[in-house]
């Protein structure tokens, strides 16, 4: 469907990758850890390796959660945009097929948040 308008209604998307000064957006969801109210929105370099993203960005972001210290993110189960995904830790995000505004979902078996409440 399209907008019903008085004129040809066409606009550039506001969040195209070229607006991010060489960086791109990446979202990461850690299910059953609703202490972090929504998926993280991260600004990342496309040529950063997957391992560096986990070490330098994801780990500090999740650190306040008691499960974080026990989590083996690199050995965890990953989804990329809702599809099963096996990351290459040493390859860049781009070479892992992670494009702008992609979402990663990382499930850490055995770690299901606090109080049986997915928190």
């Amino acid at each position: 469907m399209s907008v019903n308008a008085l004129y040809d209604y066409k606009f550039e998307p506001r969040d195209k990758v070229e607006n991010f000064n060489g960086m791109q957006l990446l979202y990461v969801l850690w299910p059953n850890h609703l202490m972090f109210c929504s998926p993280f929105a991260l600004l990342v370099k496309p040529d950063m390796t997957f391992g560096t993203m986990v070490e330098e960005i994801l780990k500090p972001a999740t650190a306040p959660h008691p499960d974080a210290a026990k989590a083996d993110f690199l050995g965890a189960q990953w989804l990329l945009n809702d599809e099963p995904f096996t990351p290459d830790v040493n390859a860049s995000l781009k070479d892992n097929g992670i494009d702008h505004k992609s979402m990663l979902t990382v499930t850490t078996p055995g770690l299901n948040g606090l109080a049986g409440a997915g928190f």
Partner: protein
Amino acid sequence: MAVKSKKLNLKDKYQYLTRDMAWEPTYQKKKDIFPDEDFEGIKITDWSQWEDPFRLTMDAYWKYQAEKEKKLYAIFDAFAQNNGHQNISDARYVNALKLFLTGVSPLEHAAFQGYAKVGRQFSGAGARVACQMQAIDELRHSQTQQHAMSHYNKHFNGLHDAAYMHDRVWFLSVPKSFFDDARSAGPFEFLTAISFSFEYVLTNLLFVPFMSGAAYNGDMATVTFGFSAQSDEARHMTLGLEVIKFILEQHEDNVPIVQRWIDKWFWRGFRLLSLVSMMMDYMLPNKVMSWSEAWEVYYEQNGGALFKDLERYGIRPPKYQDVANDAKHHISHQLWGTFYQYSQATNFHTWIPGKDEMDWMSEKYPETFDKYYRPRYEHWAKEHAEGRRFYNNTLPQLCQVCQVPTLFTEMGEPTKLSHRQMKYEGERYHFCSEACCDIFKHEPEKYVQAWLPVHQIYQGNCEGGDVETVVQKYYHINIGEDNFEYVGSPDHKRWLSIKGKSSDDKTERAKRDAA
């Protein structure tokens, strides 16, 4: 011989001062004078069928409003002279006003602009006059709200730059984008969105919490504003119902168009009101009723009766109302948890509810509070007591349509985050729900332009790359005064000194209550 009275009766006066102000043009085509009336596909066959139940005319309007203003400002003066802010239940209450002043009052102004615009777009004089009066009402509400709350600005933080913040601060893009969406639509969609879906169906869920909340918490200034606005609101609600019935009665082709608007604007209003839900359950020290009770009375019962009544026009209840009904057990807690963790970037404070308040929530939310939400607060209270007050230092993903962080959970699965994603013309978009995703799919060109605060920060458009700079320089939030935890804040300390208590006992008590 009977002398003809010089005074017009009400009916004549209404006729002369509204309908007779219009005429059939002869030099210009009607279509050129009202060019925006047709493009949405709504068919109006006879504008004279428009009924104005109030039959208010401008002369009477000014007189009534002037009388109300006089009384209202007399009370504001008395409130200020008697230091009325000292009589509120607790300074935590003022945080509800901070949310109202930055989130709601600018919407009243946006409504003024919207009604002023559609008050020019209709070719029917009755509808034009009703919209023009509502435009003036909305402007008056925006002004009087600011005057009602300005006294608090002298004594508490976070109230100093509401209109500026409304255009910039991350969570205020939720109300702002709601109204921008409505105002950039055509005139009939605007009325369906604001007059019907918002003013008629949902307004009690905004006004009752804030105005009764003010009454229950000793805020004379705001509650007096509420009384002064009440008769206007009654008129607005009546207009909302008249609008929808009029459009539906004019042509059967209007039904599916209106149904889609009702689906969209019910959902957008419901998402906007999630901010009110947390205000109601968490920010009012003296509680009026719970969000779930308010939803049951004002939406499930009243809304249920309304949609029953509209059935004869072929209108069904809004799509996804089942999701909204289920969410009444969760959203206030989910929102408060979100604002608790992002308090570094808000113009109001957050806190862990005290023991009595948590017990009240257990009673009001027997199925959900103890199971899903109390453990969060117990964990965070413990962290706070050990010197690690929880803040989330990573920015959240926002929904492309409602702009709320994607924080909601699936219906019937309160531990599973609700998230949808789709690609449109090669770009990825993320949503908080099926309903927001549906809204996007219908008019993608509108929402691809969304000014999402998180993405704007990352693009470098908000005066800095780190949250602290953005908050201070771009949002005008004074760090350490307006934001962060309530316990130990300058507002908290000021309140204790007003009440003649030292901040130490209170902090101790707050910690004990929370533990």
